[in-house]
């Protein structure tokens, strides 16, 4: 009915096996047992092991230290000084001797996440049990399934082909959507359910997170599961349509993307895949290169613009066009080598952009002074 292809049972089970086999292992230890060496290594249980950036950030979050402060401390002193500072803070915390943390390690023995004890980690086996229960309760069909091979993190998009999940936007007859859910399980955040929307005209998928439809599940203890299912049931009453989505789409259609917004989207796409050497290769999806050339022809080099200036620099692309470029790249075969899991992250990033409280150019108004020549623009910029 939707024209969207659902995953076969065989493929679903194959991905499930991959997820279970590549799943990171975790263990809860006393916090005092862990010492930071530098931003790439920690010592615990007498051994020095590698640690990822995400895991270090997790430690800082538990210790309530902004990362910027730590990096400044490192710049001001040394790597050893920074490590001493962090370890001193860690060991000075109130009740630090009673505190525990959960370390998550990938198959190579690298720490990929550090969480507060018992939180932020749900095994993939339990995740799949919950996914199956949700699929049964809400008649959901999986359409995408990606696994991060380094950590076993999983992202599944699923749709419900019931009537409530199809919707349009009044006044925009070409825009038709189908809503569903994205289910994520990652070793640093646990499980989460987010609403997912598929734009039917081109089958682009977007995972929406900023419309207050983010349902986290960091633990299965203490009534958390009941609360989670209750929240999901509430979302299901509205066919999983994210509240405020249609308004956000209208705003995105009616607003030009700023240079900063276009650049951010292009950068995210470029980082997602291998061999995307420059932004010209992405013109088909995000015309950042074309926009940059237009500015250069007008005598303005975007590379010399400050971030604030980029936020005020309009482009010929609407926010909606930019988002669709991103979701099209994420959802379809684009000729580049892009890991499935990174595609899901792009869909989620697109949702974050759409859910912004206000786009950069949204509050621009037409002034009596807008209709000016290129020479006048150059003269203005000379100051």
């Amino acid at each position, binding site marked *: 009915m939707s024209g969207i292809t659902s995953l076969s049972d065989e493929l679903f089970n194959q991905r499930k096996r991959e997820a279970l086999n590549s799943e990171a292992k975790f263990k809860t230890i006393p916090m005092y047992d862990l010492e930071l060496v530098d931003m790439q290594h920690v010592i615990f249980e007498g051994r020095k092991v590698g640690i990822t950036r995400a895991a270090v*950030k997790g430690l800082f979050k538990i210790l309530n230290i902004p990362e910027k402060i730590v990096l400044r401390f490192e710049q001001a002193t040394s790597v050893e000084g920074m490590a001493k500072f962090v370890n001193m803070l860690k060991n000075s915390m109130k009740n630090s001797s009673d505190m525990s943390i959960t370390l998550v390690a990938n198959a190579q*023995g690298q720490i990929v996440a550090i969480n507060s004890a018992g939180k932020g*980690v749900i095994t993939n086996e*339990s995740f799949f*049990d919950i996914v199956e229960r949700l699929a049964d309760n809400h008649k959901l069909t999986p359409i995408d399934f990606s696994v991060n091979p380094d950590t076993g993190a999983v992202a599944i998009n699923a749709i419900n082909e019931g009537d409530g999940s199809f919707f349009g936007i009044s006044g925009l007859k070409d825009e038709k959507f189908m809503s569903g859910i994205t289910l994520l399980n*990652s070793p640093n955040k646990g499980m989460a359910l987010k609403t997912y929307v598929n734009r039917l005209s081109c089958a682009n998928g977007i995972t929406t997170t900023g419309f207050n439809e983010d349902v986290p599940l960091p633990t299965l203890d203490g009534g958390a599961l009941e609360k989670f299912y209750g929240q999901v049931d509430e979302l299901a009453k509205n066919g999983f349509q994210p509240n405020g989505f249609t308004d956000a789409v209208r705003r995105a259609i009616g607003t030009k993307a700023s240079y900063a917004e276009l650049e951010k989207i292009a950068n995210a796409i470029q980082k997602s895949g291998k061999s995307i050497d420059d932004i010209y290769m992405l013109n088909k999806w995000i015309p950042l290169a074309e926009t940059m050339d237009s500015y250069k022809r007008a005598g303005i080099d975007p590379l010399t613009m400050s971030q604030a200036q980029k936020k005020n620099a309009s482009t010929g692309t609407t926010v909606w066009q930019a988002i669709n470029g991103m979701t099209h790249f994420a959802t379809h075969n684009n000729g580049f080598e892009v890991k499935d899991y990174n595609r899901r992250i792009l869909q*989620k990033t697109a949702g974050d952009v759409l859910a912004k409280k206000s786009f950069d150019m949204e509050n621009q108004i037409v002034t009596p002074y807008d209709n000016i020549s290129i020479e006048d623009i150059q003269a203005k910029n000379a100051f």
Partner: protein
Amino acid sequence: MAERTRKRNSRKAKAATPRKLSVKPNVGTLAEHTYDPKQFEHMDTGTVLARLFAHNKSTGEQGIQRATNYIGIGDPGVGKTTVLLEYLADAQKLGAKTLFISGEMTRTDMKEYLDRFPKFKTIPILFLGEYCDEPTDLLLEEVLAEGYDLVLGDSFVEIQEALVDTCKMRTKAAEKFIIDLMLKHNAGHNHGKHYTSFIYIQQMTKGGTFVGSNKLKHNTTGMFELRHEGNSKYLEFSKNRRGDMGKRLYYDLEAIDGNINWNEARFLRDEENREQAQKEKALAEKSANDFDTLFKKKDALDEQESEIKSSVAKRLMSGEIDEVEAIKELNKLTSVQLEDAAESVTEDI
């Protein structure tokens, strides 16, 4: 004065007389004891409440078992009497002989219940208030002598006070009387040889806990509470030798077809969630073991690699191998490969 002297003399006389047992103790093994299978029958009303009271995991039977005793407490207005009268009415429909001993409510008070729950009409009720001038002990003995399968007493404290008032018993003696009567009928010592089960509603302390002695607690099979939780109400067992504890059964007193609205769906969901949480605990333990194994293997591998590096260095120094060969050997090591591995492109892992 004379009365006091008489009593004092009576106590002295009793103290002077050597005490003797009135029965011969029956000390034997359980191998010599014969159980009546009827004693283990369940009064299953087919509701989730029946399952909460008691369920036999091996046979699947559920419902209040004969010869068992329960005490329930609850917040005011939570529906203690309604919930338990419903159990009585449902058990009666399935053939159980039931009795309600009302120490708190009168016939007029009951009218409101009958309007909402017509099925309560058929339950035999003893209104204690109608026998204020009669000795309550004899009254209870006579009524119970007929033999019942399931008796509800509301409340234990009111019945106890009736005994104190009408029989001049002390409070402790009154409690003992009720317990002894309970045990007597549990054992089937009545005309119908019914192994009677009892449920007593009990009052709460100001702190919200059960009023009663340890003796009373020890003679109960289970204790349950009925509480408010926001706009909801639930029943939960805090002690239960025959069924589940710590599981909440939510309900609504708004009668649907003359029945209490039990939230069975939520109960089953909670069960599933509990099982999932327990499964997750076991999986977490396994993951912790796997974590340890992973790092033990890594330690062994690191040691091996350290030896290889050391050996390559020695062989290079001695001229046994050249630089190119040394680099080739070192590149085979896992630790070198790890440093080259690309990290995930985003912070979300």
